[in-house]
């Protein structure tokens, strides 16, 4: 999945040249703590997470509901700030960044794919893909060339001018992946990306994400509660009660093996 046409190659090069921290695909968390208030109650979602990914590769973060995995992903994506600890993603120290810097970080340095796709209903597929570039003030022609190339790669070239409600869940998620890849980031984060997809679409999506990790030399981190998803990952981290309980090599393991390994991690 690499750009094929000359104009698309040029656009890609353009996106890459302005993406800060390009080439660095590592993630490092050290004693990260995060709490939330729910009404009068304070809930500690993360209790000192230590995690190191040297990258690139396809990694998973597994955990039961309430284990803190979405919170962790939000912190990695610069959508939230830790109460304490340090977070380094693609060469950026996130805990030291102000809001403006985090905004640019989200725009250029990483890509995020959500469970609910989170496409803007008022834009067509191409418009959604190039949105980060539009926000960055890039030349429209370059953006459209790049966006079309990405959609072609993901098999959606013919749907560029279709709005989200005219697409299936799988197609919408692929548009979201294309958007995440616009600036060729070093890190791509995915929060339960197959949560709203049927099994066939889910399988296809895992294939896409694996190829993204391998061919683009990206670090892809997937948050999931599905054992079968972890089987696609090189390595899987297990979150339990707000901390990393363990890690294991998970690629190729059967679902039952994955469940056992996850359950026994850290015990």
């Amino acid at each position, binding site marked *: 999945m690499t750009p094929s046409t000359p104009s698309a190659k040029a656009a890609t090069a353009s996106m890459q040249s302005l993406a800060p921290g390009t080439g660095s695909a590592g993630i490092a968390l050290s004693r990260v703590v995060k709490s939330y208030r729910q009404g009068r109650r304070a809930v500690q979602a993360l209790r000192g997470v230590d995690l190191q990914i040297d990258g690139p590769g396809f990694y998973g973060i597994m955990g039961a509901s309430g284990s803190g995995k979405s919170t962790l992903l*939000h912190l990695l*994506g610069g*959508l*939230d700030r830790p109460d304490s600890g340090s977070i380094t993603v693609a060469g950026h120290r996130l805990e030291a960044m102000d*809001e*403006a810097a985090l*905004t*640019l970080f*989200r*725009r*250029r340095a990483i890509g*995020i794919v*959500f469970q*609910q*796709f*989170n*496409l*803007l*209903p*008022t*834009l067509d597929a191409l*418009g959604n893909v190039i*949105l*980060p570039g*539009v*926000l*960055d*003030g890039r030349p*429209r022609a370059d953006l459209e060339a790049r966006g079309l190339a990405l959609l072609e790669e993901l098999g959606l070239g013919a749907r560029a001018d279709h*709005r*989200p*409600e005219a697409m299936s*869940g799988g197609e*919408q998620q692929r548009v979201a992946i294309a*958007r995440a890849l616009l600036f060729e980031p070093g890190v791509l984060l995915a929060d339960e990306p197959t949560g*709203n997809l049927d099994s066939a679409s889910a399988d296809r999506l895992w294939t896409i994400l694996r190829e993204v990790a391998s061919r683009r030399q990206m670090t892809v981190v997937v948050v999931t509660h599905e054992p079968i998803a972890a089987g696609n990952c090189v390595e899987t981290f297990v979150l339990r009660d707000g901390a990393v309980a363990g890690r294991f090599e998970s690629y190729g393991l059967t679902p039952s093996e994955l469940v056992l390994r996850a359950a026994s991690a850290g015990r």
Partner: protein
Amino acid sequence: MASLHPSWSFAQQALAGRRGRTALLVTAVALSAALVTAVSCAIATAQANVEVRLRKLVGDADARLVQRYGEDFGDDALETVRALPGVQHAAGRLDGSLTLVRSDGTKDEFGRAKRATVQARGDDLVDDLRLREVTMVAGRRPERDDEIIVDPLAAEMLGAEPGTQVDLQRFGEPVRLTITGIYERPVLGALQRPLAQVARRTLAMAQGQDPEVSRIAIKLKPGLKAQSWIDEHKAAFEDPLVLEPAELATAGFTRQLDAANLGLLIATMIAFMSCAFIVATGMTVAVSEQVREMAIARCVGAERRDLFLGQLIVGAVIGGLGGVLGAPLGIGVAWGLAEHFKELVPAGLSVAPLGVMLSLGGALMSGLLGALWPATAASRVSPLIALTVRARAVSGSLPLALGGLGAACIGVQLLLLLIPEVEPRFWAWALVGLPLIHVGWFLLSVPILAAMAPWSGALIERALRVPQGLLSGSLRASPIRFGLTAGALMMGVSLMVGTRSDSEALVRNLTERVQFADAFVFKTAGFSPEEQERVRAIPGVINAVSVGYMPIRVRGFERKDGTSDETVLGLKAISPPNVVCIGFQPEAFFRQNRIDWIRGTPEAALPSLQDGTGVLVAEEFLTARGLDVGDRLFLGAREERRGFTIVGVVGSAGLDLATQFFGIRSMYMEHAVSCVFMDFDVVAREFGNREAVIMQFSMPQNLDDAGEQAIAAQLEDQVPGSSFASGRTIRRAVLEIGNMMLALSAGIALGAMMLACFAVGNVVVAGIAARRQEFGVLRAVGATPSLLLRVILGEVLAIALAAIVSGFGLGIHLAWMATRLYHDLAGLDLKVTLSPLPLAIGCLVLLALTMLAATPAGVHLMRRPARELLAAARGA
């Protein structure tokens, strides 16, 4: 019978689950209800105060009984008048002249007993109080026949104060009177002479008359129209007694008041429509984001009826609560306006019960009607929606369909204008047409916004540095939501345009009716040609017009149908053969005075007047003699017999008012019935008379009161025995009333716009809250917080621009309809008036206020973390 419990439960969840949203919508309803109440109370206040001022200016009488030739008549007519059905009060008034001398012999500087010859008005002391307000400067009104009140001028001449005794000079023993008070002069007072008011009996006795009256002022019971009542009862009085409308009606002021009543009804209906649309839009926006929740409820077994009723209950609660909060707020706003314009509205605040009831009922109905569509949509939600995650559908051809529906509503409204009878046409328009106009333009707001979106969105993106396509795409993709919000905001604009146009047209009509010369000079003995030249030579006297007065005989008639002489249907005409020939300078006179051409036109009449072949007559002349335009009169001072053609029939409401003020009404009446008007030079040429009894002239525009008095002083020097009277002072008083109406209408328009802006602002806020997830996505992919604010302000700006376009359309439409209604019901010929500057300022205020109303929500959104906004997708 099915229980309401599930519906109440859904309603409670919807209301309490999103308290902030509920508060926003209740506030929107409250502001709309306040709009209705404030508009109706403000107009009622303006109307009440205008009426008070007008009645103070011209008196409270609806009709009057006078003698055709201006002479006094027996007061036995008073009993006849009082016995007529529909008469609330009647009072006899007698005009005369009195000489008062200080009883204690106090001397003036020349050693003579202080004295004053006053223009006196004899009143029926109790009855007249009900018909004309007298403002006392000191002391009290007279209560007995031996009491008198004087104006400050008379008091100064007599050196008198309340309690001073004066002797009324007459044939026989003087009559001792006690001055009980000093009263404020009416606007002018006759010929600037000192004035006094005394019991009618006393004045009659002083003049050696039997109990007589100069006129009987009549106040009718509420609800009776003066002209209809006069037509019904005029036969009760034999000629020369004439029943006619009082000054309030002849000067057109009753029509102004009728028009204002009409304006109140229309404005209240418009404000109610505004409230309904604001609420409907807000409810629709609020409910649309609850579709998923309703789908979930359906998944777990909720019935369609439960969801439907639940939404209706929400609407009723929001509407009812908003009405209860909004009505007092509206009264408060109206009170604030009345306090701010205290000098212009001395009668204070008038609360319009109709407006308050409409506000409360309208708010409740708005809540219910506004909830009807969302309730229907809620009841039709499929449970499958809860199981799918799909982006919201974007409308396709719906804007065009809504536009077609809107155009159809307007078309139906226009068809109602074809109803031939006036009253059914008015009620059809008020009850059906007016709502249809508003619904039509409200729906048209959607295609208007859709049509404007490409260029308005691009323009705003450039102005606010929003990435290309972000705003315009949003506008194009959601024209329904944005268009309906623009429709709600449109109401404020239309109120501004319509109210301003109506007020300006009414004020122009009012001031045009009292257009006459700046000044008048009278001399009983007449102005010789040399004196006329001396008047013209006085600095500051511009375009002096001489008006002559010459008795003449009618030598015969010749009608177009061939009848001639004084025979009418075989009988001799009753009217006297002696008439008065009024010579005037037509061109200059027409320029200085507004003349109502009842028949004929100035363009057709002027050549005939100037070449000496034509004459004008007043309507009373035709009535008395059964003549018409085109008939010929033969006139002669001695034995000559010269023929003239009647080329026009004229009247002048303003002159009628002026003559009443100047106290020369009897002379005017005599003129009206028994005179013809012809060119001054023709009178000189044909009948050898070049004397003038009245001269009227214009003065420099920037001349102040001191300058006016200087001219008056010079006139007295140059032409001893002449009396000066200011026409500008009357016009100033009328203009003051007009300006008050304009100021109040501007206040109403601004207040209406502010309320509409803030109400719609709340709707916009609710819309922002409904799109949190969308904004979260933008933040997640790298949009800065300030960009969100700019996007929101950009959307609001686009809504406001569309609202201005549709608001102008609706406002002009309403103003045009109003001119037709005023013509049908109040007999006024008004034109749609659009003043660019005030409307431009109003539009700028609208843009600023709407953006201001949305800014707090935008700033709040800016400060929310991206994660929190995204969580909205999960229903958080």
